[in-house]
Every structure is written in C-alpha cells, then in structure tokens.
C-alpha cells in the first residue's frame, strides 16, 4: 500500500499548525481519514470493506474460514480463531519478528498484516513446518531457551534459506536481523541454520 502524507502549501497562508489548532485533533483526524479512504477507493482495484465478514485463508495447505473485521490482523485470525499460537504477539510493529509467517513463501509479519490482505495467498505458519529440518536443527543446536521467539526464528531461517540455500554464517547473521531474542540464543540459532545449510535441506 502506498504511503500517504498530507502536506499543505507553506505559501497559502494556512499553516499545518494553524490548521490543527483551528480544527482540533479529532476533526483533523477525521478529515485525514476521509481523504485517505477516498484516495484509496480511487486507486485501481481497491475495495473498501466494512463490518464482520467471513473470509477463507489458505493456511498450511488447508482452506479455513475465519470471521474478521477489516481491522483484524492476520495474527489475531491465526491465533484466536485457528488456534495457531506459534505466531507470537511480542511487538505491535513487526520489530521483533516473533509473528513471522510465510505468505507465498515470503516472510511477513502477521501482526502488521490485515487478515483480509492474505485472502488468496498461500500461508505457512510454524505449525506447518513439523516435517521441516529447521525445527530439528534448532533442537539439536539447542537454539532456544524460553522458546517464545523460536517459532519466529524457525520461520525466519526457513524463509532466508529458501532465498539463499548456501548461506554463510555472516549472511545468516544479516538475514536474521529482523528477529529478536531476549534470552540471547543468537549464537546457537546461527549454528542451527548452518546445520540446515550443511544438511542440504
């Protein structure tokens, strides 16, 4: 989705500060909201959704129905309706990487994605990777402590190695920089990823 910023002409004698002061934050927010909605509706192929809807998500090779509102995030749909709790709520802005899932093979943060955006996409969560060598390598390298960030790392490693199957240690370090671990298991996570590389998975 395109980022939009509203700029006011500095020579119009109508500054942004005056505008906000005059109309109050609520009115300003409402105006911006209306502008954004209208602009998005004009965009080619854009749809405006409202109310609760039943949508179909393809998760781990299964079509599943979930009831969502436009504001429902993919993570909420996965966790609270499909009980796929491997996707963890740690941050609200995608900075922790704990909510990483694959969408058509690419890593996305399920907590910053709306469920409706993933309709028609092929989603893979950590639960769908039980037969993947990555979780096994994590156990063998002891790449976890409390384990709360681990699913995000497992999906992250899978996604990164899909794009770079022969990655070096340095590349893996860089490739996984979107995942955080408070226990500090990074060293062993790298070792687990290297095990997968060497195993030719």
């Amino acid at each position, binding site marked *: 989705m395109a980022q939009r910023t509203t700029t006011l002409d500095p020579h119009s004698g109508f500054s942004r500060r005056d505008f906000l002061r005059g109309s109050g934050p609520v009115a300003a927010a409402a105006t911006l909201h209306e502008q954004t909605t209208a602009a998005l509706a004009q965009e080619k192929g854009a749809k405006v959704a409202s109310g609760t809807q039943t949508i179909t998500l393809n998760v781990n090779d299964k079509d599943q129905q979930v009831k969502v509102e436009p504001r429902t995030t993919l993570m909420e749909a996965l*966790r*609270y309706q499909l*009980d*796929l*709790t*491997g*996707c*963890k*709520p740690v941050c609200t802005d995608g900075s922790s990487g704990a909510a990483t899932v694959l969408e058509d093979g690419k890593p996305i943060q399920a907590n910053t994605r709306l469920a409706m955006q993933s309709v028609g996409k092929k989603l893979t*969560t*950590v*639960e769908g*990777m*039980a037969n993947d060598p*990555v*979780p*096994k390598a*994590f*156990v*063998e390298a*002891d*790449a*976890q402590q409390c*384990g*709360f960030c*681990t*699913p995000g790392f*497992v999906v992250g490693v899978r996604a990164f190695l899909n794009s770079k199957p022969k990655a070096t240690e340095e590349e893996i370090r860089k490739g996984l920089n979107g995942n955080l671990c408070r226990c500090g298991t990074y060293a062993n996570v790298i070792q687990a990823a290297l095990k997968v590389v060497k195993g030719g998975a």
Partner: protein
Amino acid sequence: MAVEYSWPAKEKSHAIGTRVKRVDGMAKATGAAKYTYDVNLKDQLIAKGLGCPHAACTIKSIDVPPALKISGVVEAKPLKKSGDKIDFQGDLIVIVAAET
C-alpha cells in the same frame, strides 16, 4: 572445617560430560508449546487494565456505566474510588473484561 568433595568419575555419572536435549525443544520449535498467552478457551474473556495517564493526581470521579454499554463488554470494575490519590503513572484505575 573444609568439606572434602570430588566429582564422581565420568563413567559413573549419567549427566556430566553428556549433551542433553531440551525435553520440550521440539514442541517449542514447532509452535506446539502452549504458553499462558496462547490459551484460547471457549467463551474466554479478555481483560485489560486502564492505567492512570498522570504521575500524581487525585481521582475526582470514575464513570463506569458508559463502558458497559459498549457491545461485548461484560464487566468494568473501578479499582479506585473518588478521592483516591494516584502516586505513579500507569497505576491501574479500571479493569475491563470483554468478549474477543
């Protein structure tokens, strides 16, 4: 008085010098492990606390009924009463439980 102690011989120990795998390692690595945060019971309510936005103040009044009118809200309980002093920002004032 010093206590004499020596580690048992390696061949007599079942733990020293061996690699031990985490018993719940696979469950955690595949997302199967359930943390408290992951429990989804039928008809489960979600509770949230409202913290005071001010660092030091006195409560004038708390009006709970409007919160109860919002659909899905089951319970809203004030934890303070009017006249109570707030000593720190984030001190819980009201707790609300609602359907998901």
